């Protein structure tokens, strides 16, 4: 059978830097192709070429046997290629039906045919398993439901090829299962999918074929059967990544001084009766499903949200008041979404890093900033977080890969020399190489006496990284495990609603 989509020696450069070099591979009809690679490997650029957002400098694409050279996102749609973007591309104030048919409403004369619109929308929603009325505003949907809606949108114009970009990063376990079932169903209908993900286990489980990109070149391709996670990772990073997690040292609790003490913390409808102690030098994990109150707990601890009962102390001193005061006591929070509330995306690396500690570099009497002092601090912290030297201080952070962005957030907090770090999903959406570096960094911080609280949806990450683990379930702590008693199934049982 002839392939549905072919990349033929596709190349693309930005400002003289080659980001794609002679990329060639095929997507067969009715196949799921897993596309993997570190951030910056060229996956997004490749998909932007496919989607008509960018044009290739070299090579060509063929789709359904014909030459395919889209000049606009509309062209991709007309050809029958649908995208489910990582940052979901939906309009919360419009309803489901309008989101589905935004670009080609059924009309009579100038007016929208409402009956037909709602009928067709209902049928599509049914197909992806979203049993909601077509007039529901999209703003009321969960992330998982929005993902299904995006797929329904691709089906609205009968897309033969659907691209899923990091579709599971913010999904709960049942939502994930639903998505996987839908992917298999679409394949059974004869459609093809390109599945982009950092979660290699998912890729291997879902994909028929796998393509590995590194530095803009295809470094591996074949049927999924030929790959295993270890081989994928070594292809992606170009070296044998022996150990993702740093060796558990005899650190942790060596000192035993309580750093962060939480007693009887509660807020109606959010968390209930939370008590735990984070010790000096300890890495404490918090596991739990989406909506278990993990992020909410971190926000309360950092003073972003109120709590009705209980106390929080840091090194014996009660923590009250707004984040500003808690930062002064030595608390830091890395937020769940670095794009939304972790970084000023258009500001430079230097400005982002300096943000928290800017006041310390202000010289009396006029409180003018000491540029030399700032530069020195920046140089020191850049080395500490191993920010790639090729990145300049003046580069806007939005041009950085996810891993480097996360390092900038960490650098910002390290300058404040925090005693306790709250890390909410510290490795979300970043590649394996950067992940390993961040894990290393977390351990170094703990070794130097910080207490680190890690919140994560990836159990493997928590068990690899932490000295101790708490499980949150509907706002309560339902389990506590120490490193020698980590048991994935027991942890999962504690996390599932009873």
């Amino acid at each position, binding site marked *: 059978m002839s392939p549905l989509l072919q990349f033929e020696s596709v190349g693309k450069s930005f400002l003289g830097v080659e980001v794609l070099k002679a990329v060639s591979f095929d997507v067969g009809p009715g196949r799921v192709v897993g596309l993997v690679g570190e951030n910056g490997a060229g996956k997004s650029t490749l998909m932007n070429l496919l989607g008509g957002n960018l044009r290739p400098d070299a090579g060509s694409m063929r789709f359904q046997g014909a030459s395919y050279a889209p000049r606009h996102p509309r062209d991709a749609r007309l050809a029958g290629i649908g995208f489910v973007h990582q940052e979901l591309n939906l*309009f919360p*104030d419009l309803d489901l039906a309008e989101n589905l048919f935004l670009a080609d409403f059924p009309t009579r004369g100038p*007016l929208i045919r409402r009956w037909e619109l709602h009928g067709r929308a209902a049928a599509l929603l049914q197909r992806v398993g979203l049993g909601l009325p077509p007039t529901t505003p999209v703003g009321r949907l969960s992330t998982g439901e929005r993902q299904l809606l995006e797929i329904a949108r691709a089906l609205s114009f009968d897309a033969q090829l659907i691209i899923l970009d990091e579709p599971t990063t913010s999904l709960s376990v049942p939502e994930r299962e639903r998505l996987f079932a839908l992917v298999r169903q679409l394949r059974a209908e004869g459609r093809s999918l390109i599945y982009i993900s950092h979660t290699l286990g998912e890729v291997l489980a879902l994909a028929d074929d796998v393509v590995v990109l590194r530095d803009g070149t295809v470094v591996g391709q074949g049927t999924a059967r030929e790959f295993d996670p270890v081989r994928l990772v070594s292809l992606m990073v170009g070296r044998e990544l022996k150990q993702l997690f740093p060796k558990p040292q005899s650190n942790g609790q060596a000192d035993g001084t309580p750093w962060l003490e939480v007693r009887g913390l509660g807020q109606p409808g959010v968390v209930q009766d939370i008590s735990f102690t984070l010790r000096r030098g300890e890495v404490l994990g918090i596991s739990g499903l989406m909506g278990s109150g993990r992020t909410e707990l971190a926000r309360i601890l950092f003073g972003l949200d109120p709590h009705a009962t209980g106390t929080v102390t840091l090194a014996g001193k009660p923590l009250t008041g707004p984040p500003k005061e808690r930062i002064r006591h030595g608390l830091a929070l890395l937020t769940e979404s670095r794009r939304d509330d972790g970084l000023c995306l258009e500001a430079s690396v230097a400005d982002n890093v300096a943000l928290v500690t800017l006041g310390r570099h202000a010289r009396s009497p006029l409180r003018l900033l000491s540029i030399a002092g700032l530069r020195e601090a920046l140089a020191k912290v850049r080395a500490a977080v191993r920010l790639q030297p090729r990145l300049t201080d003046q580069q806007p952070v939005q041009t950085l890969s996810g891993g480097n962005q996360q390092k900038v957030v960490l650098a910002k907090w390290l300058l404040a020399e925090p005693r306790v770090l709250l890390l909410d999903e510290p490795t979300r959406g970043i590649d394996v190489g950067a992940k390993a570096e961040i894990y290393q960094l977390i351990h170094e911080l703990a070794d130097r006496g910080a207490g680190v609280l890690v919140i994560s949806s990836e159990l493997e990450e928590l068990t690899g990284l932490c000295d101790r683990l708490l499980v949150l379930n509907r706002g309560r702590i339902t389990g506590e495990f120490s490193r020698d008693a980590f048991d994935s199934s027991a942890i999962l049982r504690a996390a599932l609603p009873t």
Partner: protein
Amino acid sequence: MNPTRQRLLLPLLNHATLVLFAAVLVGFGLLSPKFFTAANLANLLVQASSTAVVGVGMTFVLLTAGVDLSVGSVMFVAAAVAGKLTLAGAPLPVALLAIVAVGLVVGALNALLVVRLGVLAFIATLGTLYIGRGFGLWLTQTRAMNLPDSFLALGTAKVAGLPLPPVLAAVVVALAHVTLTRTPFGRQLYAVGASREGAKKAGLNVGRLLVAVYVLSGFCAALGGILSLAQLGAVSPTFGTNREFTAIAAAVLGGTSLFGGRGGVFPGTVLGAILIQSVENGLVILNADPYLYPLVTAAIIFLAVLLDSTRSRLQAHWGRRRIFDEPAE
């Protein structure tokens, strides 16, 4: 805040403009018996027509997260051109067509600047505001022009027993409302306002949609200009001054967001326009110091916007995600 108070307060805040509107009407009604006469209310509607029509065009632009500051200048230039033409002997229909043409041309110029050259809407239309005003002043040599009575006759003309200006405004509002709620173009505008990049990725021709709203806004400004001329019967050098702000205020009072993607012309902008006009009309009836008008109008606009932001804040607070239901106490 307990749930009962919450239930009482939220609907009140949700309709802040309506509540204020009622308060203003009742207030003026109590202060002056002349306010609630049929003649005065009809007069109020006639006066509000122009603002409503200009506000409708502005609402389209605001929905796409843009702004059109040039509408007041459009009214002035169009009026100046029409005045010159009629004084040179052109008949009324020619003058009216000229006004509309000026509106479309300035609208197209704004579209060119914003869409083709990528100038920020605020800057681009601020530029056309000054260009328009300057051109109009040069054209009129800053002299006031009295227009023939045929213009004033338009203002007092009746359609099926109703005064022409509100009828025309009602037609514009009805067309705009149907366009925004029932046509692909209208729904797509909301998407563009919510996220321009997102709309592009969804396959919309964003450029074409934006061109359409700026041309529409120019067109509405011209129509609004005709309605104003029909009441004043003269073109003064200050004609149309600050009308961009009244139009924006009418739209915002009506619940249209300056950040795009949210709002509508009916009841929104219409209500906003009538509210602004009621305040002015009431103050005139009360014989208030004319220099106080802008202060009182501003105070009411402030109050409405304040109530609206309180509402969003409270809603965000009350709507905070609950993980489990509160146990009954």
